[in-house]
C-alpha cells in the first residue's frame, strides 16, 4: 500500500507543479503546451518504435547476410561476363571477386558491428533516407526508396482520409439518431449488424467487387484512374472519384456498424446523466440537448475510440489496396514482398509507424481542443 500512496503523492506533486507553472496563462497556451509535450513524447515513441522495427528487420543480421550474398552474386556475374577478365585464371578471378566484394561491403557499411550500424540505420530510417530499392522504381523512374514511398503516399492518404472522415461523421450522426430512437427496429437492426465488423475491409471489398464490378459491371474492378488517364483535369478527378467508391465503401462497411454500436452506447450512457434530465426539465429543444449536453461531453471518449479504430484501419488497408489495385503504400508493400525488396519493406514498416504516430498526434490535438480538462488544467487529462 505504501509504495502506491507514495506514487500517488508524487503524481500529485508533479501535477501541482504543472498547475503552478500554467496558472495565469490562457487556455490557448495550455493547449499549445499540451500539444508540444505530446509531440515530444510521440517523437521519442517513434524513435523507439523505429529502432525496434530495425532490430526485428535485422534479427541476427539475417538481412545483412542476404545483402552480402546478393553483392557476391552480382559481382561474380559481373566479373564472369566481362570480356576483359576472360584471360584470368580461376584463382585470379576469385581473388578479384573477393576484392570487389570487400570494397562493396565496406561501401555499404556492412563491415562495422551491428550495434554501430543499427544506429546509422535508425537515423537513416527516421529521415526516410533508406538508400535505393532493389527492384521497384517509382513512376518517374527513381530507385530512391524515399521517392518511391512519397509517390505512393498521396493515393493512400486520399483513400484513407476520405474513408475515415465519412466514417467519423456517419457514425456520429447515426449513433446520435439511434440513441434517441433506442429500442426501435432500426436500432436493433444496426446493433444486429455490429458483429459483421469482425471481418476486415478487404473481405467486404471482395464482395463489393463481385457485385458491382463483376456481376453488374457498373464500377471498375480496381485501380485509381481509368486507363488511359483522362487528359482533362475535371475528368481525371471524376475518374478518381469513380474508382474511390468501392474501396471507400469497403472501409466504411467494415467498420461503421461496430463504431455506431459503441458510440451509441456512449451517447446513451451520457444522456442518462442528471444534467441532461435537468436540461430536458428546463424545456430546452432536443437539438440543443443533443449537441451541448450529450455530444460535447462524449467527444473525448469518442475521439479516443476513433484513434484506436483508425490505427486498425491503417494496417487493414494493406490488403484492401492490394485487392483493389490501389497504387498506395499497401500495394507497394505487397509488391515488395513478392520481389523481396528489403529496403522497401523496411521503409514501408517505418512509414506506417509514422502514419500511426501522426494519426495519434492529430487526434491528440483534437482531443485537447474538445476536452475541457486540458484547457482548464493540464494535469487532469494526461
Amino acid at each position, binding site marked *: 500500500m505504501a509504495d502506491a500512496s507514495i506514487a500517488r503523492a508524487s503524481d500529485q506533486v508533479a501535477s501541482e507543479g504543472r498547475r503552478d507553472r500554467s496558472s495565469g496563462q490562457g487556455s490557448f497556451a495550455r493547449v499549445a503546451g499540451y500539444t508540444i509535450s505530446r509531440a515530444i513524447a510521440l517523437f521519442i515513441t517513434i524513435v523507439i518504435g523505429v529502432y525496434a522495427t530495425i532490430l*526485428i528487420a535485422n534479427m541476427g543480421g539475417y538481412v545483412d547476410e542476404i545483402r552480402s550474398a546478393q553483392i557476391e552474386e552480382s559481382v561474380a556475374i559481373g566479373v564472369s561476363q566481362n570480356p576483359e577478365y576472360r584471360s584470368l585464371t580461376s584463382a585470379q578471378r576469385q581473388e578479384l571477386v573477393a576484392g570487389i566484394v570487400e570494397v562493396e561491403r565496406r561501401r555499404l557499411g556492412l563491415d562495422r558491428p551491428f550495434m554501430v550500424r543499427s544506429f546509422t540505420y535508425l537515423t537513416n530510417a527516421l529521415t526516410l533516407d533508406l538508400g535505393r530499392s532493389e527492384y521497384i522504381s517509382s513512376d518517374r523512374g527513381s530507385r530512391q526508396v524515399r521517392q518511391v514511398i512519397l509517390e505512393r503516399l498521396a493515393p493512400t492518404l486520399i483513400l484513407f482520409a476520405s474513408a475515415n472522415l465519412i466514417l467519423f461523421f456517419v457514425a456520429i450522426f447515426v449513433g446520435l439518431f439511434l440513441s434517441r430512437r433506442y429500442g426501435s427496429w432500426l436500432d436493433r437492426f444496426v446493433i444486429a449488424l455490429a458483429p459483421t*465488423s469482425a471481418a476486415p475491409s478487404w*473481405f467486404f471489398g*471482395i464482395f463489393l467487387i*463481385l457485385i458491382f464490378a463483376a456481376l453488374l459491371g457498373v464500377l471498375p*474492378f480496381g485501380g485509381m484512374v481509368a486507363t488511359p488517364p483522362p487528359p482533362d483535369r475535371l475528368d481525371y478527378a471524376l475518374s478518381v472519384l469513380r474508382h474511390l467508391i468501392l474501396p471507400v465503401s469497403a472501409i466504411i462497411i467494415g467498420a461503421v456498424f461496430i463504431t455506431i454500436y459503441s458510440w451509441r452506447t456512449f451517447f446513451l450512457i451520457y444522456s442518462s446523466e442528471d444534467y441532461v434530465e435537468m436540461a430536458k426539465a428546463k424545456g430546452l429543444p432536443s437539438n440543443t440537448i443533443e449537441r451541448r449536453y450529450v455530444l460535447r461531453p462524449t467527444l473525448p471518449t469518442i475521439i479516443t475510440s476513433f484513434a484506436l479504430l483508425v490505427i486498425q484501419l491503417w494496417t487493414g488497408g494493406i490488403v484492401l489496396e492490394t485487392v483493389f489495385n490501389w497504387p498506395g503504400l499497401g500495394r507497394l508493400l505487397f509488391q515488395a514482398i513478392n520481389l523481396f525488396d528489403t529496403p522497401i*519493406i523496411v521503409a514501408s*514498416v517505418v512509414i*506506417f*509507424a509514422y502514419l500511426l504516430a501522426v494519426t495519434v498526434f492529430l487526434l491528440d490535438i483534437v482531443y485537447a481542443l474538445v476536452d475541457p480538462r486540458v484547457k482548464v488544467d493540464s494535469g487532469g487529462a494526461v
Partner: protein
Amino acid sequence: MKALLRNLKALTQFPSAIVGLGVVFAMVVFAAYAMITIPYSEAIRLWRGGDQVWGDTPRNARPAWFNLFPGNNLPTTIRVDSRHDPNLKTRQEVGEELTAVDIRLPFEFRYDGFPKELNVTFAAQFEARRPNVQMTWVTPDGREIRLGDLTLRATETFRISQESRLERRLGGRPPEVGLFANPDDPSRALHGTYELRAEGLVFEEGADIEAKLVVFGQVHGLAGTDHRRRDLMVALLWGAPIALAFGLLAAVGTTITTMIIAAVGVWFGGIVDAAIQRVTEVNLILPLLPILIMVGTFYSRSIWVILGVIIVLGIFSANIKTYRAIFLQVKQTPYIEAARAYGAGHGRIVFRYMIPRVVPVLVPSFVTLIPTYVFLEATLAVLGLGDPILPTWGKVINDALTQGALFRGQYYWVLEPALLLMVIGFGFALVGFALDRVFNPRLRDL
C-alpha cells in the same frame, strides 16, 4: 465460479447468443470431422500433390451442386478404365508373336455442356519392342473420327484436347467440343453412347496394353476444384481446425499475457507501471501487419511462428489500459488489504486475488478477439504469406484472386472460403457481443 455459471445462464436469454453458440458448435464439429476423415499428413499430401494425386480431376471445375439449379446440366468427370472391366478388351492372335489388342471404352454422355478436357492414359507391358496403338472416336450417330497413332512407352498419356491437327480436322473447334458437337447444331453436345476405340498391336509374347479414358467434367465434388486440379474440399475442411486453433491460441495468448502485465503493473505501481504504460504507447504505433509481413518474408512463413509474433506484439496492446482501470479499482478493495494483512506475497495476490476478479470482464473481449485473429491469418494468406504447407481458407482466396477468379466468373472459388470465414467470424462475434452485455452490467440495460 457460481457467478460465471449464472452469467452463462443469462446468456441463453439472448437469441443472438444461441445462434452464435450454435454456429461455433457446428464449426467445432466441422473441424473435428475434417481431422477424423482426412488425417493431418494426408491433408498435406493431398494439398501439395501434383498430377500424381490430382491427375483425374478437372481444372477449375464448379461444385457439383450447380447442376441442382434449374437449367443446369453440366458434365461430371467420366472415367472408363480397361483394368476395371475385362469385357472392354479383346485379344486376338494375328501372327507369330503378333497379337491385336482391341480396347473399347464406351460411356454415356447426356449433358448440355461440353467436357473440359479429354485424356487417354495407356499402360503397356513389353520387353523391347514397343506396342503400337491406333485410336478412333465413335460418336452416338455412328461417325468414326481418327484421333491418331501412338507408339507406346510403359506409361503414356495422350492429351486429346491438345492435338492441334485434330482440332484443324474438326473445323477449328477444340477437340473436346468438336468430338461431342451435334452435326446439325454444333453449339450443342450430341447425347448418347460414345466410344473410344484403341486398336493396339503388341509384338511380343506376354505383352499387353491397358487404357484409361478420362472425360473431364465441368463440375466436381461438393466444392469444385482449383487451377491445380485440387479438390477445394480438402482446403475448406482443413481450414476449419486451423482457423479455430489459430484464433483461439492467439486470443488466449494475448489476453492472458496482457492481463498479467496489467495486474503486475497496477500492483507494483511506480516505475513498473510507468514503464509498462510507455511500452504500451510505443507498441501502439508499431504497425502489426507490416511487421508480420516483414517476419513472414524474412524469416518464416510457418503459421506457428506468426502466431508467436502476434502474441508477443499483442502483450502490450491497447487493452492494457482497460484492464489497468479495472485493476486500479480492484486494488483498493478490502479483501486485497486482508490478503496483505495475513502476509500473502506479491505473486499470490496478483494471481490468486486480482486476476480471478477480472476474468468475467475479460471473457467477452476474449471471444470477440478470436475472429479478429482468424481474419488476420486470412489477411496474411491473401498477401501470399500463408503457411507454405497447410491448406487454409485464406490461401484458397489468395489462389483465387491471383488466378483472377472474379474476372473469369469463378465465383464459387472465392465465395466458399469467404462464406466459411464469415460464418466462423460472425458466430464468435455474436457470442462475444451477447457476453459483453451479460458481463458488463453498464451495458445490460442498453
